[in-house]
């Protein structure tokens, strides 16, 4: 038996689709290509198999995702993760928040920032720079967008330059996208350990 996870956690749950994913045995050439399935690589997650229903989007989204989160230069990888976490907390995407909080903690070799965020949300006690980054990410993720000129000024006062601010906008907005797939198309679940 598995149960749905409702609380923010750094322990990454499993993801259970609400629709039937593409069956790898019945996938088209185009789907196999987008899934990067080769004879030596046949392991594909349920999430990616679900997205393979829209193969044209999947194909362009993966390189875009990797560029925004991992390309060198600009804002640090850990700070981009903070943008992702801000979006995922607003949209309550438990799965995305877990994956990216775990990544943040590993990059920083420190769990205190994500502990604080999951315990206190927007009232978390953060450094001025993390505070400015998290608040901007949170407000950019609201519907409608709540970030304003004052939030932009706070980012600059915290020392972010234009390249870093652009990376923050991109990583936060990217999770506006990812959350609307992960949180909408499936549930974060954990196997119940039999007593």
């Amino acid at each position, binding site marked *: 038996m598995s149960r749905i996870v409702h609380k923010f956690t750094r322990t990454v749950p499993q993801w259970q689709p*609400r*629709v*039937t994913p593409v069956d790898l045995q019945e996938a088209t050439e185009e789907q196999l290509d987008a899934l990067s399935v080769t004879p030596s690589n046949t392991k594909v997650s349920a999430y990616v198999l*679900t*997205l393979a*229903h*829209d*193969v*044209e*989007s999947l*194909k*362009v*989204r993966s*390189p*875009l995702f990797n*560029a*925004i989160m991992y*390309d060198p*230069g*600009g804002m640090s990888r850990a700070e981009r993760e903070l943008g992702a976490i801000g979006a995922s907390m*607003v*949209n*309550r*995407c438990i799965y995305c928040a877990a994956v990216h909080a775990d990544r943040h903690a590993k990059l920083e070799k420190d769990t205190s920032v994500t502990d604080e965020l999951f315990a206190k949300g927007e009232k978390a006690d953060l450094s001025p720079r993390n505070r400015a980054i998290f608040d901007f990410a949170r407000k*950019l*993720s609201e*519907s*409608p*967008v709540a*970030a*304003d*000129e004052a*939030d*932009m*000024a706070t980012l*600059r006062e915290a020392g972010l330059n*234009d*390249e870093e*601010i*652009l*990376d*923050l*906008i*991109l990583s*936060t*907005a*990217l999770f*506006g*996208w*990812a*959350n*609307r*797939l992960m*949180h*909408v*198309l499936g*549930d974060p679940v954990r196997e119940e350990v039999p007593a």
Partner: protein
Amino acid sequence: MTIFDTTTLSAAGITAGSAPGAAAETRANIIEATQAAEDAVLTPKDAGAFPHALRAALAARIANEAGENDLAERYLAGAGDMAGLADPSQDGEEEGLAHVVAFADKAANHTRDILAEDISKLQAAGVDDADIVRLCELVAFVAYQLRVVAGLRLMKGAAA
């Protein structure tokens, strides 16, 4: 076509030579990939149950609801006879698309409140699983693009 001709930078009013424009040039690959993603959700070869005009109308609707009127206008250009749905006060009943419109609105604007039953309602209305994924990709991409545009506009304001 330069990155300054893409929907994202032109809707945000970012020009070459400006400070945000210079930052965007360092991420030209991302701006180009964003345009490719836009093309994949708005005008895919395999549109499934959602013709290009309907996709454009729903995108414009989400941008309008978010107050991103310049971006909405650009989407609306492709909306044809579906343009009425770009008005957030229209519920899609007339077009027989009330279930699609209600879902798109909730996924775009109240993401955190989406439940498993929102998906099962679409399935019960005859939307197949591949089309549910297509609809989510469209809504999710627009949610991304409108936030990039909103953020860039704030950058531009701060640089002025």
